[in-house]
């Protein structure tokens, strides 16, 4: 009896040890680089290198460009996702696939594509030149690149959030005299809000880290198109501490975003809206 129990304990013991070891390796591998950013240089050193005006400029530009890009993504992505989630029409699956395509396109390829489409000699280059809108080597170009890479993160999540809504809620709203637009604004959006916030945070996180498409399409001009990731790349060979300081700021912002998403999806107030 007791021998049997011992044997019973030993076998899952070895397996469990293996599981714990695997988790340890995964956690160590994933957190070590992030921890190292804060450990490699002291907090004082990090703070003083943030005094560098060009570093602050890059952070400020990153903040502005990502905020505008997120605004564009939400403004166009929300109604588009609503349409895709609630209507069936020929080509709907194709439309969803097209929306998701930027997820798998390498960022450098996205940059090349944007140049080919919107660059001075691109498909729409002439039309853009006539309107006087310049994108290449301009902050506007940064925003275009960020919007391109970040939008699928938001639209996918919004599509899922709208798809999970009980269709009877919208029908109830319609029978109570609300137009389609009012039903969307007063019922669909508030009840899908946790999903929309999560999607917005993911899109913002992706835009904040954007590098390849921005570099290829808009270049890396300090103060105009040089966002924080590009500034990190520029200084990592000769000013490693400066690169570390910017990295620390980005890691902190990203961690806060992730925390925000977790809180939004578990929050009692917003979470209950999905019940």
């Amino acid at each position: 009896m007791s021998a049997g129990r011992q044997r019973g304990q030993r076998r899952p013991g070895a397996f469990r040890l293996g599981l714990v070891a695997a988790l340890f390796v995964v956690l160590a591998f994933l957190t070590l680089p992030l921890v190292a950013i804060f450990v490699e240089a002291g907090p004082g050193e990090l703070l003083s290198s943030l005094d560098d005006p060009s570093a602050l400029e890059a952070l400020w530009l990153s903040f502005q460009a990502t905020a505008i890009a997120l605004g564009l993504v939400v403004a166009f992505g929300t109604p588009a996702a609503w349409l895709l989630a609630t209507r069936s029409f020929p080509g709907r699956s194709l439309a969803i696939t097209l929306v998701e395509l930027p997820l798998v396109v390498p960022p450098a390829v996205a940059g090349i594509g944007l140049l080919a489409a919107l660059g001075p000699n691109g498909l729409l280059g002439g039309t853009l030149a006539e309107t006087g809108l310049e994108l290449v080597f301009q902050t506007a170009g940064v925003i275009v690149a960020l919007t391109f890479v970040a939008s699928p993160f938001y639209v996918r999540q919004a599509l899922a959030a709208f798809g999970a809504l009980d269709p009877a809620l919208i029908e109830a709203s319609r029978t109570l005299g609300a137009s389609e637009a009012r039903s969307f604004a007063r019922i669909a959006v508030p009840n899908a809000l946790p999903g929309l916030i999560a999607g917005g945070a993911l899109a913002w996180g992706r835009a904040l880290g954007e590098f390849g498409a921005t570099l290829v399409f808009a270049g890396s001009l300090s103060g105009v198109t040089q966002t924080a990731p590009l500034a990190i790349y520029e200084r990592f060979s000769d000013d490693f501490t400066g690169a570390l300081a910017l990295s620390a700021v980005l890691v902190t912002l990203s961690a806060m975003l992730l925390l925000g998403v977790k809180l939004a999806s578990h929050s009692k107030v917003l979470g209950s809206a999905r019940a």
Partner: protein
Amino acid sequence: MLALEARSAVGTLEICVGLEVGEAECLALAGPSGAGKTTILRIAAGLLHPDKGRVVCGEEVWLDTDRGIALSPDRRRVGYVFQDYALFPNLNAWRNVAFGMGGVPRADRRERALALLERFGMSRLADARVPTLSGGERQRVGLARALARDPQALLLDEPLSALDPRTRTEAARELIVLLREARVPALLVTHDFEEAAMLADRVAVLDEGKVVQCGRASDLTAAPASAFVADLTGGVVLMGHAHRRRDGLTEVSLDGGGVVLSTGAASGPTAVTVNAWEISLEPAISVNEGSAQNRLPVVVSAVTPVGNRVRVGLLAPQPFTAELTPFAAERLELKPGARAVASFKATATRLVPR
């Protein structure tokens, strides 16, 4: 008056119906799931457009496919009570009710919503969030919300099915009050014939998208047009007036004559329900030797075989149904016009105030 005609293919179902509901009348659409009951409500509300059809409410034409008229749902003044009530989780109880008050000045909406909730005894929960409400409370908010727009027609989709049996009786009583007070045509969907008989003035039995029989519940029970209708009308509902006896039993004097004893509790206007298979039939000249407290002299109105059973329509003089084996029906020589005694135990009855 609400008149609805529709012809439409919905999935594999072929809908083909014509219905008329009078002012202040409640017509129940009864039938098994998949018969197209909810589809008809959706056509009336404008949530679904049939291939061909006409919906007229009072003087207003809501839908006429021949003339190219199809009002959107928000332009038809209906009070729709959804199966799970579909309350808005992002709004509290009174805001759910006020949502339908588009034409009311903003300042008056709260007061009007509170007054409606009060009618269903819910004003104390006016500020409660929807997820914190119980099933019965949600139903009452749902009913109050359906009235908020001063509807010209009420559409109720299985209004009691989301409730547990205990809250059902109470909810049914409130529903009857609502239907009586609203004084508008009402269409009520249910798969439960007893519920239809209790709540509605007339019942339309629906099978595979078509109305197979339409009439008063008692007429359907007394003379089912088909085995399908006989099977559906299986439950027995007898209307009467209840009063409590000293021995703890309830005595219900049936409308039109006869008395039923029940172990249930009720007083005043009451519906007695019994399962058809709990009713035994005996020859008209027989001695009471069993334990059954209830013995009603009856006349057989219909004999309908349903599968391996026989449904016997009875008049006592209120119509109801007993379910027997073919062997027993043959031995008793049951045919329309024959006399018999229907017996059932007081413990087999349930009482629903109405």
